[in-house]
């Protein structure tokens, strides 16, 4: 008897350890980032971060204002989300509720295939196809701008959004749909007013995951956004994101320099941004669940 109890206890402990590992790792990452970034607080001081110029290498005066990087990331992320979520959700609704089984058999693997394309390859596509298109469509000097980056990111987020939303929509109980149809609602009304709202928690989760991919994506945006560190709200301007900055500059930065510390600060801001997105998503879900 006693033996069984001990065994249960140790199993419980192992499971607890397994469950806490992820929290532990996140904490560790955060601590590591904080440790490398911390000296920045003393020299040149935190206020430096909140300036509008990112000029890490200069003969006169270096400047480490991350605002243009933050706004660059936000601009690209917001536009990409605004494009990807509606398309992704509509695609999911189509596949789960409207498509014939033949169409579904073709579409699903195709979308999963799209999700598996490496981002560098998508970057090439952006560079050679999308950027020239954007350039001529808006009559610009260059097609390397926030809009091209956002379009490319949307392309990468859509498969995630489609496939997770589709699961959520398909798991809505059939009895809800029957209840709606029996009241005289059309198939479209049922999809729109019953099925989709019932699947909303899953759809929100899908959108958040898609957005997560957008915020964290590095390669493709680096290739097509033009990488000019400037504060702008115009999608047709060239921008530089936080991820692209870290990826491009980390390799050459002298270890322990102010620039090095500044890049870790950017990393922390990026981490906080993803946390914020997650928290907002959790809130939205909770609010939705208690109606």
């Amino acid at each position, binding site marked *: 008897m006693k033996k069984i109890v001990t065994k249960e206890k140790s199993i419980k402990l192992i499971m607890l350890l397994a469950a806490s590992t992820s929290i532990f790792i996140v904490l560790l990452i955060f601590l590591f980032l904080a440790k490398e970034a911390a000296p920045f607080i003393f020299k040149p001081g935190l206020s430096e971060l909140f300036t509008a110029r990112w000029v890490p290498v200069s003969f006169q005066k270096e400047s480490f204002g991350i605002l243009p990087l933050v706004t660059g990331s936000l601009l690209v992320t917001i536009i990409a989300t605004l494009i990807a979520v509606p398309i992704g959700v509509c695609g999911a609704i189509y596949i789960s509720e409207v498509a014939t089984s033949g169409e579904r058999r073709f579409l699903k693997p195709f979308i999963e295939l799209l999700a598996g394309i490496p981002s560098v390859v998508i970057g090439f596509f952006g560079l050679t196809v999308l950027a020239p298109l954007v350039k001529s469509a808006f009559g610009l000097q260059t097609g390397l701008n926030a809009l091209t980056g956002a379009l490319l990111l949307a392309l990468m987020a859509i498969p995630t959004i489609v496939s997770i939303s589709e699961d959520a929509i398909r798991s809505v*109980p059939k*009895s*809800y749909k*029957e*209840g*709606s*149809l*029996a*009241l*005289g*609602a*059309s198939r479209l*009304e049922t999809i729109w*007013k*019953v099925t989709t*709202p*019932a699947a909303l928690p899953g759809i929100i989760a899908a959108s958040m995951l898609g957005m997560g991919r957008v915020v964290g994506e590095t390669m493709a945006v680096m290739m097509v956004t033009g990488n000019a560190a400037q504060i702008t709200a115009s999608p047709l301007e060239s921008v530089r994101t936080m991820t692209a900055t870290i990826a491009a500059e980390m390799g050459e930065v002298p270890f322990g320099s102010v620039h090095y510390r500044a890049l870790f600060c950017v990393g922390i801001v990026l981490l906080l941004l993803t946390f914020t997105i997650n928290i907002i998503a959790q809130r939205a879900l909770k609010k939705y669940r*208690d*109606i």
Partner: protein
Amino acid sequence: MVKMTTENNKAKTKISVTNLDFYYSAVQALFDISIDVPAKQVTALIGPSGCGKSTFLRTLNRMNDTIPGTKYDGKIRIDDKDIYAPSTDVVALRKKVGMVFQKSNPFPKSIFDNIAYGPRIHGTKKQSELSEIVEKSLDRSGLWNEVKDRLHKSALKLSGGQQQRLCIARALAVDPEILLMDEPASALDPQATVKIEELIEELRADYTIIIVTHNMQQAARVSGFTAFFYEGKLVEFGETEKLFTKPQKKHTEDYVTGRFG
């Protein structure tokens, strides 16, 4: 086959079914059903599991249309209109023929929005009108006093019996003439069942009700007419009292006395 009508011919026919066959893909589920369902009466459908009661019920509001591969043959007329005619407006049909399912299925929305769902679909937009319909429907289903303080709370937080009465209220909200109920109380405890039966009694005067039940006592308590189905065929149809006390067919007698099924 001769049409089975009620001997009590004073009752006006609401639904007239003639020679109905029904198929799920290649499998035939209903065989040559002919029946005249009287208006403003409760008609019970009884019979062993798998005999086609639900299938028959679902032909009356064309819910079977939603299952791919189904086929039918024969005629179903409601108020003398062929409901399978190409010109039939299925939306209007389902508005007129409400349905309550075996497992209560309120939408994951507030109580108010559940009831208002149907009227909104059919074009009622004004909030005051909707409120009025919601109150009337809930009152009609005996739920108003229990839920009037939490109309905007989730319908999923109601008890099982309340949820089923909510579904009845939701069906009533679009002002139907016929109510189809597929074992509406089979998932409920005895007290909740009594409430549903009382409600059916209440509604009888204004609606034509068809209720599927496995419970003989329930059929005897709530219905004026009973139809006995067996293996996809309508074996006997008549006034409930007669069918239970003096069944014409041996099969019916065996079933209602509990010798099989």
